[in-house]
C-alpha cells in the first residue's frame, strides 16, 4: 500500500467535508460580512438529528433498505438545519444588521454556545456511536485503500458543491444572491427582496452543513455535541485560505486544508527529524494559513479590496 497515495486520499475526503462547511461560512460572509460562528453547531445538529432518526428507524423496522433510511434521515436533518438557520438569522442577526460590526459576532458566539449546550442536554455528554448501515467495502485506488463511505463522501460532496456553484452562477436566484452581496441597497432598489435572499443563503449553507455533518459522523463512526466546534473552525480557516466570500475559493481552500493536514501530519515527523510529531497537525494548518495571508492578504482567490472597503 502506497502511504503517500493513502494520505492524499484521506486528505481529499477530509478536504471535501471542509469545503462543504466552508461554503456555508463563505456564502454568509459574502452577503453579510459576518463570521457565522454558529455554523459549526448547525453542522453538529445535522449529524445528531440524522443519527437520532436512523436509530429510531432501526428500532421500528430493522430490515428497511439502507438507502431509504439514509434518505429519510438526511432529509430530516437538512430540513431541521434549514429551519434552525432561518430562525438564527431572523432572531439573532437580522435585528443587528445596522449595529456595530462586532455586535452580531457576539450574538453568533452566543448562539454557538447555546446550541452546543442544548445538544449536550438533549443527547448527553457521551460520544454516540454511528450504527453501521452499509457493509464496509474497501476498494483499491492508485495503491491506496478507500472505503465505500469515503467514496460516498467524495461523490456526494462533489455533486452538491457543483450544484451550488451552478445555482449561484446560472439561475435567477443566484444572480440575486450575487447582487445582494455586491450591495444590499442597490440590490433592493432593483426589486430584489434582500431579506428573503439572505434567509435563503443561510438555509442553503445550513443544508450543505447538515450533509457535511452526516458525512463526517459516518466517516469516523462517532458523533458528539462538541464535534461542530473544531470542524467549524477548520472550515472557516479553509474559507479564509481560499479568500472569504468567494465560493470557488472555499472549495479550493477546503480541499487544500484537508490535503495539508493529512499529508503534513503524515510527514511532519520525518521533515523535522522526529522533533515535531503528528500532534502538530493543527499547527500545520494554521501556519500555512498565516504564510498564505502574509503573501496574499485576501486569500488565494480573494479579490483585492480597495483601501475603503
Amino acid at each position, binding site marked *: 500500500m502506497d502511504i503517500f497515495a493513502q494520505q492524499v486520499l484521506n486528505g481529499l475526503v477530509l478536504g471535501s467535508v471542509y469545503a462543504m462547511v466552508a461554503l456555508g461560512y463563505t456564502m454568509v460572509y459574502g452577503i453579510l460580512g459576518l463570521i457565522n460562528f454558529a455554523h459549526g453547531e448547525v453542522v453538529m445538529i445535522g449529524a445528531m438529528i440524522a443519527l437520532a432518526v436512523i436509530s429510531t428507524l432501526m428500532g421500528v423496522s430493522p430490515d428497511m433498505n439502507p438507502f431509504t433510511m439514509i434518505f429519510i434521515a438526511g432529509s430530516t436533518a437538512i430540513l431541521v438545519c434549514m429551519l434552525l438557520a432561518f430562525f438564527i438569522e431572523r432572531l*439573532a442577526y437580522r435585528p443587528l444588521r445596522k449595529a456595530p460590526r462586532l455586535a452580531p459576532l457576539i450574538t453568533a458566539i452566543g448562539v454557538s454556545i447555546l446550541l452546543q449546550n442544548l445538544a449536550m442536554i438533549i443527547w448527553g455528554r457521551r460520544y454516540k456511536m454511528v450504527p453501521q448501515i452499509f457493509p464496509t467495502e474497501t476498494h483499491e485506488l492508485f495503491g491506496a485503500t478507500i472505503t465505500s463511505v469515503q467514496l460516498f463522501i467524495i461523490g456526494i460532496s462533489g455533486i452538491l458543491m457543483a450544484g451550488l456553484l451552478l445555482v449561484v452562477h446560472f439561475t435567477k436566484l443566484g444572480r440575486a444572491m450575487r447582487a445582494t452581496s455586491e450591495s444590499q441597497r442597490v440590490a433592493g432598489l432593483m426589486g430584489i427582496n434582500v431579506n428573503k435572499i439572505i434567509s435563503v443563503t443561510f438555509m442553503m449553507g445550513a443544508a450543505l452543513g447538515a450533509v457535511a455533518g452526516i458525512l463526517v459522523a459516518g466517516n469516523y463512526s462517532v458523533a458528539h455535541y462538541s464535534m461542530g466546534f473544531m470542524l467549524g473552525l477548520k472550515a472557516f480557516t479553509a474559507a479564509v485560505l481560499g479568500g472569504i466570500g468567494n465560493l470557488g475559493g472555499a472549495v479550493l481552500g477546503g480541499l487544500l486544508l484537508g490535503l495539508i493536514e493529512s499529508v503534513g501530519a503524515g510527514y511532519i515527523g520525518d521533515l523535522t527529524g522526529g522533533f515535531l510529531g503528528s500532534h502538530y497537525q493543527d499547527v500545520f494548518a494554521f501556519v500555512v494559513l498565516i504564510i498564505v495571508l502574509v503573501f496574499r492578504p485576501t486569500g488565494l482567490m480573494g479579490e483585492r479590496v480597495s483601501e475603503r472597503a
Partner: protein
Amino acid sequence: MREFMQSFLQKVTSNRRVLLLGYVLLFVALAVLPFLLSNTVGRTWVRILDFALIYAMLALGLNIVVGFAGLLDLGYIAFYAVGAYTWALLASPQFDLHLPFWAILPIGAGMAALFGVLLGAPTLRLRGDYLAIVTLGFGEIIRIFLNNLDRPINVTNGPIGINKIDPISIGGADLTRTHEWLGISFSGVHIYYYLLLALLILTIVMCVRLENSRIGRAWLAIREDELAAQAMGINTRNIKLLAFALGASFGGIAGGLFASLQGFVSPESFGLLESIMVLCMVVLGGMGHVYGVLLGALLLTVLPEILRSTASPVQRALFGDVYVDPEALRMLLFGLALILVMLVRPSGLWPAPKRRVALDQDSSRD
C-alpha cells in the same frame, strides 16, 4: 428625567468636595467588600472576585487592541498564556528556578509584548476578519505548543501542566497564607484581592491616560480610518505594533498573576473559548470604553459563577430533582444572555459617549 439626571450628575461631579467624598466611599466599599463576601456567602466568592479582577485586567489589555486600535484579536489568550507560563517556568520546581516576583513580572510582560510584536509584524497588512482568523490561529498554535512541548525536551510538562508555582512573597512572607495585621486576619485570597485591586486601578489609570494621549488619539484615528490616519502623518505600522505589544504585555502581567494565584497552569486554561470570553467582555461592556469594559469583565466572570451555584438548587426547588445537567444549563443561559444583551444594547452595556456618535454615522453607510 434623563436631562435631570445628567445635570444632577454634572453638578455632583463638578463639586470637588462631593467628588472626593464619592471616591472615599467607593474606596471604603472596595476595601470591606472581601470581608463582607467571606462572612456572608463564603470565601470562594473572594476567590471568584480575585479572578474577576484578573479578567478585568485582561479585558482592559484586549480593549487596547480591539477597542482603541480596532484590530480584531481572537487569540488574545495566547499572551495570557505566555505570561502565565513565563511565571510558571521561572518560579516553580520545573527548572528549579525561584525568581522573585518583581523580576518575573517585567520579564512576563516583556515576553508577552515580544509575542505581540511577533504576531503583529507579519499581519500588519491584513484587514478586519482576515486579521481575526490569523490571531485565532496564532492563539491555537501557542496552545498546541504548550500542550506538546514535553518532548523531546520537557519544557512545559505537556497537558499535565506545571504544578507548585511559587506564590508572590514579599520579604519572605508568602502571600497565599493567612497573615495577621493590626489584629485582623487576612487570608491568602484577601491579600491577593488587595494586590490585584491596586494593580487593576493602576491599569485603569494607565488606560485612561493612554486613551487621551497622542498615542491613544492615533489609535482611534487608525480605527476610524487607517488611510486617513496615514495621510495625517501617523506612522500606522509602529502605532499598530505598539497596540499589539502594549495589549499583550497587559495580558502577560494578568497571566503571571493568574499563575501565582492558582499555583498551577495547564494548556487547558488557554483555549479559544477563553479568548472569545475576553472578547465578549470587551464588546458586551462597551468596546473602547474603559469603564464599560470593566463592567463587562466583572459581569461575565461573576454571572457564570452565580449561575453555577444556583443551577441545581433552583431545579431541585422547582421540580424536586435535578433534571438538566447544571453545567450545560449554566452555559446555555450564558449564551442566551450574550444574545439578549447584544440585541437590546448593540453598542454594549456602557458604550463610550464619543464612540456612540461615530458608530451611528458609520452604520448609515451601506
